[in-house]
C-alpha cells in the first residue's frame, strides 16, 4: 500500500486532478451526465406504463359506455381545463428555461425560473382544488352519495372514478415535483451548479416535462370526450 501511495500520490491528491462533482466510478462528466439521464428515462418508462394501465382502463370503459362518457365528460368545466393546460405548458417552458440557465451558468436565473415553475404548478393545483370541490358539491364523487341523472348513472360513476384516479395521481406527481424543485432551487441558490455539472436540474426538468405530457393527454381524454354532441 505504501508503494501505491508513493507512486500515485494517494487518494486526497487525486481529487485535485478532476472536477469535484465527478464521481470516481465515471471516467468523464459527459459519461456521468449520460448515465444519470439514461437512468431517469428508465424511471420514466415505468411511469409511462404506470399511467398506461389507467389509460387502458379508461379506453375499455369508454368503448363500452360511450354515452355515459359523453354525458359525464360534459360535467367538467372546459374553461378551467383549458386554462390549466395552458398553465402547465407554461410551467414546462419556465422549467426548460431553468435548465438552460443552469447550462449557461446563470444560477440566479435558475432559481427564478424554478420558483416561477413552482408558482404555475401551484396555480394549476388551486384550480384543480376548486374543480374537485365542485364535484363534491354536485355529488359526482364515486361512493354511496354519488348522484347522476338518467340511465347512465352506473357507468358515469366509473368515469368519475377514473377521473379522480388519473387526475389525482397526476396531482400527486406534481406535489412530489414541488419538493424536488425546492431542493434544486436551494442548490442553485447555494451556487452548487456549473455548466459542467447541472445534472440534477436536467433530471428534474425531465420529470416535470413528463408530468406535463400526462396532462396533455388527460385534458382531451377527460374534458373533450363529446362536446359536439355526437353520442348524447
Amino acid at each position, binding site marked *: 500500500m505504501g508503494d501505491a501511495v508513493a507512486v500515485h500520490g494517494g487518494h486526497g491528491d487525486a481529487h485535485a486532478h478532476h472536477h469535484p462533482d465527478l464521481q470516481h466510478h465515471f471516467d468523464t462528466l459527459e459519461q456521468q*451526465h449520460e448515465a444519470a*439521464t439514461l437512468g431517469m428515462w428508465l424511471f420514466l418508462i415505468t411511469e*409511462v*406504463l404506470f399511467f398506461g394501465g389507467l*389509460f387502458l382502463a379508461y379506453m375499455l370503459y369508454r368503448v363500452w359506455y360511450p354515452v355515459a362518457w359523453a354525458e359525464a365528460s360534459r360535467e367538467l368545466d372546459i374553461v378551467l381545463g383549458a386554462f390549466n393546460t395552458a398553465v402547465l405548458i*407554461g410551467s414546462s417552458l419556465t422549467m426548460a428555461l431553468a435548465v438552460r440557465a443552469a447550462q449557461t451558468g446563470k444560477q440566479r436565473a435558475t432559481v427564478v425560473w424554478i420558483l416561477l415553475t413552482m408558482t404555475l404548478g401551484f396555480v394549476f393545483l388551486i384550480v384543480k382544488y376548486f374543480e374537485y370541490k365542485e364535484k363534491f358539491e354536485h355529488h359526482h364523487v364515486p361512493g354511496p352519495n354519488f348522484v347522476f341523472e338518467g340511465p347512465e348513472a352506473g357507468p358515469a360513476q366509473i368515469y368519475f372514478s377514473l377521473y379522480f384516479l388519473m387526475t389525482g395521481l397526476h396531482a400527486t406527481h406534481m406535489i412530489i415535483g414541488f419538493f424536488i424543485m425546492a431542493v434544486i432551487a436551494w442548490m442553485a441558490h447555494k451556487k452548487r451548479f456549473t455548466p459542467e455539472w447541472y445534472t440534477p436540474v436536467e433530471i428534474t426538468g425531465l420529470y416535470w416535462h413528463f408530468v406535463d405530457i400526462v396532462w396533455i393527454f388527460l385534458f382531451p381524454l377527460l374534458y373533450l370526450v363529446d362536446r359536439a354532441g*355526437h353520442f348524447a
Partner: protein
Amino acid sequence: MVGHISPKSTYYAVFAALMVGTAITVAVAFVNLGSFNFPVAIGIAITKATLVVLFFMHAKYSSKVIKLFVGTAFFFLAILLGMTMTDVLSRGLKTYPGGAGGSGYGERAPRVPGAAPAASREGQH
C-alpha cells in the same frame, strides 16, 4: 460544457406551438366529426407530446441509447393499448360466415345513435 444548449427562441417557438395545439384541440372538439373527434384529439395530443419530448426533454439532441429508451417507453405503451384494444374491439365482429358475434363491444354499447340494438342485429343472420 455538458449537453446541448438550445437557443431560447427554440423554447419559445415550442411553447407557442403547444398553445396553438391546445386552442385547436378545444375548437375542434365542438365540431361534430362523428367517430373522428377521438382520433383527431389524440393526434393533436401525440403531436404536442412529441414536441415536448424532442425539444423540452432534449431527446432530439440525446445519444442513440437514450433515444432507444424513449422509443421503448412508447413501444411498450403501444403494445399494452394496441393489443388489448384489437381484442376488445373485434369481439363483436363475425369472423367467419354464419358465425355468431362474441360477447363484448357489440352487446355492451347498444345506445350508440344509429346503431341497431344487439338483439335485432343478431336476428338478421
